[in-house]
């Protein structure tokens, strides 16, 4: 048995939390169904059991399979190559799309998208002002025209006063 790095325990903890909470939640819909013996919770419990045993298998393999220092397990390869801690910039890169996704309904696609693209470009390391403004505007205009004018795809116009007006104004211009 060998000592596992912390991230593998975190992974195992995640899967345990996932399966235990998913199993506990099955009691909320564990009702009998006419003509179907297994009910609504039968299939989910099978899936949860599969995930549970796979997580356990992964842990046991990591603990017992790679004792020989010359023989690295695949998990070692993973931890060496990809478990580098994320920098603040990367965390922002993960957060910005979520903020965009949460605001797009109220502020509208047409208003938020250029700012989102500019922020994203900035985070990926672009510092040239011309590119920071030009690229997002170019992509935004091209795709907005393509989808709104030619493919008739309705995109969110926002629902807050002012933003809704702006969104519908852009749609009118594009169409």
């Amino acid at each position: 048995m060998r000592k596992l790095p912390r991230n593998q325990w975190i992974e195992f903890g995640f899967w345990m939390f996932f399966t235990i909470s998913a199993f506990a939640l099955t009691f909320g819909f564990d009702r009998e169904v006419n003509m179907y013996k297994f009910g609504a919770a039968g299939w989910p419990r099978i899936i949860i059991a599969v995930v549970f045993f796979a997580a356990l298998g992964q842990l046991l393999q990591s603990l017992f399979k790679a004792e020989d220092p010359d023989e690295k397990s695949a998990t070692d390869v993973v931890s060496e190559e990809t478990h580098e801690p994320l920098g603040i910039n990367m965390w922002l890169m993960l957060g910005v799309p979520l903020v965009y996704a949460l605001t797009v309904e109220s502020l509208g696609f047409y208003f938020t998208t250029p700012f989102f693209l500019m922020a994203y470009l900035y985070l990926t390391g672009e510092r040239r002002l011309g590119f920071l403004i030009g690229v997002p505007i170019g992509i935004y205009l091209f795709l907005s025209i393509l989808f709104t004018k030619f493919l008739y795809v309705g995109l969110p116009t926002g629902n807050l006063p002012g933003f809704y007006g702006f969104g519908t104004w852009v749609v009118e211009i594009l169409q």
Partner: protein
Amino acid sequence: MENFIQGTLTLFSDFTSIMIFIGGLLGGMFFGAIPGVSMLTLGAIILPFTGSMTPTDAIMLYSVIYCSGVFGGAITAILFNIPGAPENAPTAFDGYPMTQKGMAGKAVGAAVLCSAFGGTCSALLMMSATPLLANWAISAFGPPEIFALVFFGIAVAASVGSATIWKGWLSVGLGLSIALVGLDPVAGIERYTFSITYLLAGIHFIPVILGIFAISEVLLQAEKRATGAYKAPKVNLDFPSFLEFWKLKIAVARSVVIGFFAGILPGIGATLAAFMGYSEAVRWSKKPEEFGKGQLEGVVSSETSNNAATGAAMIPLLALGLPGGALTAMMIGVFQMHNMEPGPLVFQNSSKLVWVVFAAMFFANISIFVLGWLQTKTVVHLLRIPFHFLAPAIMLLATIGSYAIRSLTMDIFVMFAAGILGFFLRRSGYSVAGIVLGLILGKIGEQNFAQASQMMHYDIMNWIGRPIAAGLLICGIGTFAMQFYRLVFTKKKTYVIDD
């Protein structure tokens, strides 16, 4: 043969028909390549206009769109990890890693050739045996067989692209778990909805696919760029050689058969065909661990299968009046707009229409080869676009694609959340292919399991009386046993990840 020649002459003797044929071909390719606005969008847009066409032209147009639309999504799947449609998702499993290795031309070329070949074989089979095959497939394949097919597919899915077999199972399990959200398929009881209205309809797989493939890829590349490890993919226009294809002849033949039979089954269609074709390629391979890392066979199997399903899907439609999927259902609408009903009588009453459609599908697949070859030589140059142009465009395309399906902003959130989850899972050696396979097969599997259990009166012995189902279940169990055997008795590591 005489009927086919007659159909061909009718198709190409009229200028309007030729223009409709070309329009359908290019339109299908274009719409198929854009996530969110699939060939179904095109089908829906043009539906009202088909009223002014002749019934033959209208049905021919839809059949051509079907052929080229299924192919179109392969290009973006290979070049940018954005499957244009769910049936192209398995193409991305190996197609995109090939692009990263500088073999984009080879991957796109393989997709072109195999799409054309799979579709042509399917069209030929369709022409030769439509009524016979339709009756057999409908009677021999019920819920038990479909469940057994899904079970078999899930068993194989765990070995695709993960760091260990356990992580493969966790990936598939996660996909199956996501598929649980929504209403249960038997009684409509809410599961894991947390009283959120959006979740009642379940988590749609298109935002998840777009997030898990496209967004996670952009994030991974952004991370590499931030750490200085980013390398732009090399642009390579090499078409696969004849020898490379000849080596894969068995995979191609197997995928044609799988795609064709999956296509005949109503409600299964090209998506399951592509996944099953890919899964079988993995299962039969001597090096299954190489799949998901840029195996030409992966692209070949997926693209052959999904296109082989197109011709097959026309069989139940024309012979029995049963639509196999959304686009064939639209074709029923077209028939009805012209006061016609598809079914056995179509062959007697509208023989000309049937053979024009058959000829159009045959030539559409031949055209895919020619147009696709030109596309390979041009579209691969898109890879020359610098990352700072490409990344925002991919993000925006994925955003629009996920929103366009149901006009729900929550789908955009799900897409980005799936992308972030995919980013972390890929960094940790999990398989995004496994997640997607689990998600797509989970819904089909549960529904058919429930129906099969009721049909079999919960008695396992009744399964033996259905040889196809029993055979597939035994193959699935055998696959599990083989995976476990390899795990326990193979000392050296077998799985290596590519991230």
